[in-house]
């Protein structure tokens, strides 16, 4: 679904992506891991047309991304960021219905979809009437995922979606996301710096460093056949909690 061909992106003197080529197939769940500044988030921003590459091509469904069709592309991608990015002046319902209302969905359809997603994300329906400031951190992230899924886009990009949550809430959300990814069969790109989380949620792990891909494969590859010295250190550094038992 997504393909980057020799993409380079610089911010001033900093090279965020360095001649990067990679393909993400339809319906796969991939985690992009690496330390801060390795270019993980830039990759997502380029796919959404929030930033533009200095060189190289980005293809979405085999079509080169152009400025003219970025709105259409964004509507086919759900995007969740670290603190959720919920609009504080709108209720949960207001946040969820921004795009469907612009697309002139019938009111009943919008409401039905919101309730369906609330059930999917295990939120009571009365949450819909609340403002983001009245929710817990975990609830806010659930709403953010709901907003991303509202128009049922084929792809879901998540940028450190669980980064700011306390461990217990984080654990619960990991469970929810795993079931979600499994049930919906969407193309998912998950950016995280947490290796166990990546291994738990994704089938493919892409380890990045300084805008380049260091290793690309399953969790077992990373743990058992590290590509280089850096991968060894990255894996060792993350060996706090053992990988969760249901790891696939």
């Amino acid at each position, binding site marked *: 679904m997504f393909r980057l061909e020799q993409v380079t992106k610089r911010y001033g003197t900093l090279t965020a992506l360095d001649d990067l080529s990679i393909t993400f197939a339809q319906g796969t769940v991939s985690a992009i891991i690496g330390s801060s500044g390795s270019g993980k988030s830039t990759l997502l921003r380029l796919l*959404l047309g*929030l930033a533009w590459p200095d060189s190289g091509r980005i293809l979405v469904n085999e079509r080169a991304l152009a400025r003219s069709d970025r*709105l*259409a*592309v*964004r*509507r086919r*991608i759900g*995007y969740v*960021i*670290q*603190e959720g*990015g*919920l*609009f*504080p*002046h*709108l*209720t949960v*319902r*207001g946040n969820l*219905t*921004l*795009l469907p209302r*612009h697309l002139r969905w019938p009111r009943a359809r919008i409401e039905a979809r919101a309730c369906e997603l609330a059930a999917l994300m295990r939120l009571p329906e009365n949450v819909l009437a609340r*403002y*983001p*400031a*009245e929710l817990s951190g975990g609830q806010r992230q659930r709403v953010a995922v709901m907003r991303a899924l509202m128009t049922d886009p084929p792809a879901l990009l998540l940028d450190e979606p669980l980064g700011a949550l306390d461990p217990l809430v984080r654990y619960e959300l990991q469970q929810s996301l795993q079931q979600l990814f499994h049930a919906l069969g969407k193309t998912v790109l998950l950016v995280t710096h947490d290796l166990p989380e990546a291994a738990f949620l994704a089938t493919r792990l892409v380890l990045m460093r300084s805008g380049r891909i260091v290793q690309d494969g399953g969790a077992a590859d990373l743990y058992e056949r590290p590509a280089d010295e850096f991968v060894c250190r990255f894996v060792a550094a993350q060996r706090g909690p053992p990988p969760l038992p249901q790891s696939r």
Partner: protein
Amino acid sequence: MRRCRTLAAALGCLGCALALSGAGAVAAAAAAPPPAVASIGSKNFTESIILADILQDLARRRGLSLTHHRAMGGSAILWQALLNGSIDAYPEYTGTITEQLLHGLPPHSSRSQLAAALAAHGLGISASMGFEDRYALAVRPAMASRLHLRKLSDLTAYPGLRYALSNEFMHRSDGWPGLRHVYRLAPHSLQGIDHGLAYRALMSRAADVIDVYTTDAQIQQYHLVVLQDDRHYFPGYQAVWLYRLQAAARQPALLASIDELAGRIDVRAMRAMNAAVQIRRRDDRAVAAQFVAALVAPEHAPGAKASGAGGAGAAAARARPTRASTRRALGARLLQLTREHLALVGVSLGLALLLGLPIGIAAARWAPLGRVVLAACVVAQTVPTLAMLVFMIPLFGIGAKPAIAALFFYSLLPIVRNTLTGLTGIPAPLEESAASLGLPQYVRLLRIELPLATPMIIAGISTAAVINVGTATLGALIGAGGYGDPILTGIRLNDLSLILEGAIPAAALALVVMAAFQLLERLLTPRGLRRFLDG
């Protein structure tokens, strides 16, 4: 959600509503007076106002209705208004014409030289009304006798005296700059002050030397010593009428009334009339009417020329104080002033909102434009109010329009800046979320960005409104009315209660405006955003 939809609309409508309500008030105010065929102006001091009252009265007897724009401001403002036809005539002094208004004329030009130079501007000049109103310096009598001060050259020996000179005198070419040179004056203490306050400063010993007009009533009241111009520095200041030649041709009655005054007011009469208004607090219109009555019917008041105003003074002493009746009308007067003031503030603010919001939005979209726009607004803000008003007269004439234009420019900065700050200050994650949803720019602006910037934008509008309420008082200088009217008149007449009549409502209005905008902010800021900002 519904509330959010109305949010942007409400903000937009606010501008229209303000502009409309203000315009309505202007229309209501404008509808009141009957149509006049010519208009005259007066400067913001008593003598000028009385002279214009007299001309208005004389013209009425010839069947010509004149609008009198009272106490419009200083020479520059009247001159501009005359040149662009906002007024057809006003009283002026020959020295001011040669020194201030026309350049390149010798200080003691003859009347025909003046007339020729003025004709080039399409203006005419009358014969002298019969008195001179010179500039002079004056001191308290006790000090004059102690220091033996008689002539201006006596001042040279006392640089320790404190000078308080009127702002205009301080900068006129026929004022302080030349005077200090000719008499070698180098006072250690020199302050600019409004002429209306100078006597108070002198008598309360806050100053030792002030500039005076030789017809000022206070000279006699306080027995001041006017220092003799022994080096003949000051030019002559014969009181004359300046008028538009076109208007004179169109309205023979105007010229006839002006000519009727030639040589008919002597310095004693003028001083007496000034005293009647300034010291005995008589209404200037009544004093003028009494003078005109004596002038046109000398058989009822023998020796009208000399005693006409004296008679006015005597009548003033007999007349019951007019204040009681004006007190009763205080409510009605305040209502009228409030209406005028609200019109000035409302229209200018509404227009600034209609233009400032889009400019602020455009500036937020495109940073280079933002910098240019902000710089321009800052420059507009630094233009002194009086200068701004003078700039506006050639474009908009006199009255409410130039004042509204000036206030409009002052309102722009807070509105544009706060819109810009509000929009660019939206947290980056929210901006990114908004962009990633796939909504077009205008939907993002209306649904997300403007609502998020609402508290900031309303704070800007509120700042502009409060500043406007204060600044609008200066609109009275160019005939815009409002609370500035009683304030300026009070300063001119040294009447504290009159000053307060304008100052207290102005302050109260500022507080009301601020409270209203606080309420508006609470109403327009969604509950969720308030929690978000508070938390």
